[in-house]
């Protein structure tokens, strides 16, 4: 099986220009682009990912310059899914971020053979912790730190719950970090490998963290849920884990699911099974080291 790192720069660029079939866990993306940031991002951050042989792909996407003035003047890129552009054009140097957001959009919009939740998922000792994405709560920083501290990353953004068995499926894709988080994680670990920064995006400065080799090599290994933890970073808070009622967690998860309402009764039962199996907590912290310790204790 070929991986991105097995291709020379020339080969990779050619493949990408025609359409490269990249597999991330259960999804095969057919990606077409001639843009440098996309090439660099794939080359550096997706080096270990498998390249699929042509067959059925889940999504046909492209990131390309538009066929108008903005091809050259203050250049832009447009993300397309199967020849349609769901988003406005973005500055050309946001091309890789645009690819990542586009991939998330495809999954959220179409992958209804899973229950998809807006949450990060990491695994340790055979059980997964799910971190629902409350905005501004520091979830991404914590996710990145955990992924660099012995936790296997399944996803930073989109949890995939199997409708029939309730297991969580990995994608192992790069963690999206912004602004100050990038500096924190860079300082946190010398192992952290980042893609190029994109400045002045709608989220501020954005960059992506390369997933570990172990994470990528195990992208076909699902696992069962252990805990749902709502993290909240707040300055000067001692680390504290408190139980959160399951009923409340269920309602929150339903409201922050991408496709719960599409799935009707199937989604309801899948979420019920997940929440029943999980221990649910609120977690407050101010120091990353305290958080890592607390999570370690949870997983043993």
């Amino acid at each position, binding site marked *: 099986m070929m991986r991105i790192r097995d291709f020379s720069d020339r080969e990779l660029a050619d493949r990408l220009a025609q359409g490269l079939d990249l597999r991330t866990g259960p999804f*095969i993306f057919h990606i077409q682009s001639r843009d440098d940031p996309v090439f660099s991002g794939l080359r550096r951050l997706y080096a270990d990912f498998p390249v699929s042989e*042509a*067959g*059925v*792909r*889940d999504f*046909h996407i492209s990131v390309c310059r538009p066929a108008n003035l903005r091809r050259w003047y203050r250049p832009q890129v447009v993300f397309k899914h*199967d*020849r349609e552009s769901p988003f406005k054009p973005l500055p050309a140097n946001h091309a890789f971020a645009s690819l990542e957001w586009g991939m998330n959009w495809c999954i959220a919009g*179409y*992958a*209804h*053979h899973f229950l998809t939740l807006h949450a990060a998922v990491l695994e340790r000792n055979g059980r997964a912790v799910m971190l629902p994405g409350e905005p501004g709560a520091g979830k991404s920083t914590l996710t990145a730190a955990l992924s660099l501290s012995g936790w296997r990353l399944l996803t930073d953004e989109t949890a995939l719950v199997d409708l029939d068995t309730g297991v969580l499926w990995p994608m192992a894709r790069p963690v999206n970090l912004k602004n100050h988080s990038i500096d924190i994680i860079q300082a946190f670990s010398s192992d952290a490998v980042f893609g190029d920064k994109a400045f002045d995006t709608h989220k501020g400065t954005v960059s992506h963290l390369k997933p570990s080799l172990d994470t990528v090599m195990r992208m076909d290994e699902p696992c069962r849920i252990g805990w749902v933890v709502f993290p909240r970073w707040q300055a000067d808070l001692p680390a504290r884990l408190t139980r959160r009622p399951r009923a409340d967690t269920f309602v929150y998860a339903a409201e922050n699911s991408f*496709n719960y*309402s*599409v*799935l*009707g009764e*199937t989604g309801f039962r899948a979420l019920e099974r997940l929440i029943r199996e999980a221990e649910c907590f609120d977690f407050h912290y101010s120091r990353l080291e305290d958080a890592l310790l607390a999570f370690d204790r949870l997983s043993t």
Partner: protein
Amino acid sequence: MNAAFQRLLTALRHPEKMASLSEPEWDALLRHTRNASLLSRLALDVRACQGWDTLPLRVRQHMRAATFVAERQIRAVRWEVHKMHEALEHMGIPIVLLKGAAYVMDDLPPSRGRLFGDIDLLVPRDRLGDVEMQLRLHGWHGTHHDAYDQRYYREWMHELPPITHITRGSTLDVHHNIVPLTARLKPQASGLLADLHPIPGYSNLYRLGNADLILHSATHLFHEGEWTHGLRDLVDLDALLRHFASKPGFLNALHARADTLGLQKPLQYALQYTQALLLTPLRELGLSAPSKKLTNPLINRLFMHGFASAHPDLSVPGSRLALFALYLRSHWLRMPMHLLLPHLLHKALARSKTAEE
């Protein structure tokens, strides 16, 4: 017709033959059927002919996903109709559900695996103001505020501008005539309402009679300006024809009604194209197949471009011009010349203004 379009039609005609498709062929077919809003329908057809296990894994996954979407949309239509009925019930006026909503509420075959947009209903013209007010009280608000658009809808298209629910986002199209009065065909609107079927479980809620459902759907399709859903609408017609053909009196009624209402041409087109593209077995169903090509070759080419516009991969050269011609034609059918030209001009100006922004 190109190979991709041919494969799409084959899938619709012979879902039992899908086992022979290669993975690259499936890769394309999935995208094409999804764009045509027919993936969920194809999924149901494959299940019905026991072909499910022969499909590649990813195809099963995407079909399963599409099926969930279709089921969800049926739930949404049922809920919206329930809420709309709640808002208007006390008025005691007859409300006629049109198209998709009618198929769902009376459990007709076209509702299987179908995707729905707005909910179309028809109310008596003299109560339109009250209807609008009641709906607004229950959360539906108009979104087209431009005075021109208001006039276009109210005076020329004979419907309220589409109204959207403020929290649920659903949209109602409230008509008071089936086809706009300025239409060149001038069908007798009251004629279409002579044979209403009540919707079970709801007072004063109806759908068009069997023959009229088909005539209305056919008229709508073959007068259409936007053809992306053309193939789906043809699939609806095929389903309706198969379902009703065996009902007593239907066949006579279909042609008699077409004559009475002056809708022979759309019916002719419907029979011709369901047979040609979907292999609807007209003779077996007792319907007289068009004995000779009554459609002139130019219009035939336009319609074929229209049906193929379900996905960019399905089109052949010349489609952009053909689709534009169909767009003009649909307006010409609905509006007399002295209204048509200013209308098109207005739309063109509005479009270029948005492009500049």
